[in-house]
């Protein structure tokens, strides 16, 4: 098992590096023209251009630039651009990056953040910073919803499988149908209306996101509704899947052996049956979570959670290239990571996989 984990880990690191390399090539190497010219302002002199090139490391070799990019990506923009943070200096809205003319104050936005993730065209803040702020919000949303949908979906699925064709089964599958069919935005709005408008005690469940650090209780109460709404759809799918898998598994020969041994039915179902049915669910779960990282758009919008999902949509709509790049990279990382997690859990559940 250990060897398997190490192999998968190495493979994931490789994938992550490949993603960064691809991003670097697509967004920084391929675009035509010398970015230094853009940064140098309106009437660049050759000396200015050279200076800019030096500043942004454009005079160095590509592999070095890539290394620089990696460093900026993971470790941040560092101390190389403190100037834009100085409150005393006015920042004028410009569309291009402009080189600092005086060392004391920024007359324009510096090309800070480049060649890291860069600066958002819209907000004129470093993309990386944006991502760092938004990611925990989205993660809070996803993790909470995931726990709920996993518990809810699998239990309903198990119940349904065991009480096949009874009223419970029909109710459960009806719930599943509802959950799959109801559009998330409708669910979200209805939930909001019921809980915040109609029910007086639920005023604490507002929209918006509350930092965990500042107010844990508020964080929780503000997230309950979005969790539930997001989880409902997935719970429905998982209930159906669990039901199908468990029914199939319970027909397998080794279940008959377990019963022939004299095991109580409960043990047969949960120890023998469920374990074998879980593996496809694990795979689905990994992919679902990974894709939600940039994909929980509707939920985030309805509940006004400034997370990665609506950042992705905003930047796509306004063609904010660096922001989009940032989201793409994060989602790619999430997928690679979840893949690793899924592989490891799968190998733990099903030993046959470890030996191939």
């Amino acid at each position, binding site marked *: 098992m250990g060897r398997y984990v190490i192999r998968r880990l190495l493979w994931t690191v490789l994938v992550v590096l490949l993603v960064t390399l691809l991003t670097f090539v697509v967004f920084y190497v391929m675009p035509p023209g010398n970015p230094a010219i853009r940064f140098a302002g309106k009437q660049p002199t050759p000396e200015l251009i050279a200076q800019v090139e030096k500043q942004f490391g454009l005079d160095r070799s590509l592999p070095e630039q890539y290394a620089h990019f990696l460093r900026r990506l993971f470790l941040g923009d560092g101390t190389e651009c403190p100037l834009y943070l100085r409150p005393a200096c006015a920042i004028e809205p410009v569309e291009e990056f402009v080189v600092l003319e005086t060392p004391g104050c920024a007359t324009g936005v510096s090309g800070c953040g480049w060649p890291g993730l860069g600066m958002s065209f819209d907000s004129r803040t470093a993309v990386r910073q944006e991502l760092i702020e938004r990611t925990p919000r989205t993660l809070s949303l996803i993790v909470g919803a995931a726990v709920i949908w996993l518990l809810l979906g699998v239990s309903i699925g198990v119940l349904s499988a065991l009480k096949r064709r009874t009223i419970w089964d029909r109710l459960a599958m009806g719930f599943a149908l509802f959950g799959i069919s109801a559009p998330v935005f409708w669910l979200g709005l209805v939930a909001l209306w019921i809980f915040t408008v109609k029910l007086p005690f639920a005023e604490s469940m507002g929209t918006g996101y509350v930092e965990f650090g500042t107010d844990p209780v508020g964080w929780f109460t503000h997230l309950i509704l979005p969790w539930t709404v997001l989880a409902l759809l997935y719970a429905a799918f998982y209930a159906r899947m669990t039901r199908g898998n468990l029914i199939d598994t319970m027909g*397998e*020969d*080794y279940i*008959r*052996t*377990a*019963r*022939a*041994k*004299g*095991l*109580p039915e409960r043990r047969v179902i949960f120890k*023998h049956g469920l*374990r*074998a049915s879980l593996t496809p669910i694990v795979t689905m779960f990994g992919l679902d979570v990974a894709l939600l990282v940039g994909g929980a758009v509707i939920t985030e919008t309805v509940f006004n959670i400034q997370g990665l999902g609506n950042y992705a949509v905003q930047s796509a709509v306004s063609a904010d290239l660096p922001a989009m790049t940032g989201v793409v990279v994060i989602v790619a990382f999430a997928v690679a990571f979840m893949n690793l997690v899924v592989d490891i859990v799968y190998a733990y*559940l*099903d*030993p*046959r996989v470890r*030996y191939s």
Partner: protein
Amino acid sequence: MSNAYASPRGEPLLDVRDLKVHFPTPDGVVKAVDGLSFSVRRGETFGIVGESGSGKSVTCLTALGLINRKSAHIEGEVLFKGRDLLTLPQDELRKVRGKELAMIFQDPFACLHPMYRVGDQLVEAVQIHDDMSKKAARERVVEMLSAVGIPRPRERVRDYPHQYSGGMRQRAMIAMALLHNPDVLIADEPTTALDVTVQAQILELIERIKGEFQIGVILITHDLGVVADVAQTVMVMYAGRAMELGGRNEVFERPLHPYTWGLLESIPRVMSKGELLLPIEGSPPSLINVPAGCPFHPRCPHRFGPCDEERPAFKDRGGGHPEACHLTAEDKRKLWVEREAGRTKVAV
């Protein structure tokens, strides 16, 4: 309906009386077992022979309570050491199952849970009926694996099923069945999925165990050759009913039912070529629409008057052991001799 065939070996361990198992389905009632009676004694290998759909597996699954009582209509009695298994409450039945009455199945590749270690699965079987510590249970498991011929049992205990070969898996299944020294072992087609040389090993193992532990063995198979080799008593089933039941030599040398004749004649014998294979015409019947009267009559070359109306009673008609055919014992003897003679063709 009592079994007229008496065996000299003492009280029966398992006594099935007029067992009926019917499954209601949207297409009709599937009469998987329709009035079956037999008994098994200590030290006896009881062979149940039949093709697919004969009801042989369902019989034993019902005895063990592995057939869902809610989905089937079950009648009759299955007496195990005096108690009727069919009326026992589930938790009582569970105590018997795997402990006093054990079963192994056909496909050893699918019978062990692929995600747990073999040793752990056997330890579970021990601990469910015996209050032993895990360590003691493990010792017992290693002892048992060694007894069934698995080499290096202490190491192999930690393996997963996919690391075992087919023969070894079946041995492990046998070990699991024997952990609590059951009184009766039911083996449902235990060697069908195995190679011939491995089959021989497994059959020899079962025989040895039967002798050592003095248990009763029920061997279910479609392979007449296997039954001829290892069984003392043979019951031939067709369409959920017994066609014939007797001692092995009796049934093979003086068979008393046209279906048995058909089976014996359609099997090529290893040591004799040049015999015509005489297949039985037609195919096994649907269990929903079992032919009226004798279920075999549509395929029987010797059918006459009552065969399509009256169901032949299962009893000894003077032939030496019970069978279910309207023909008289005299007629049967004659016909069998004729058929045997006609079968040998001149070798080309």
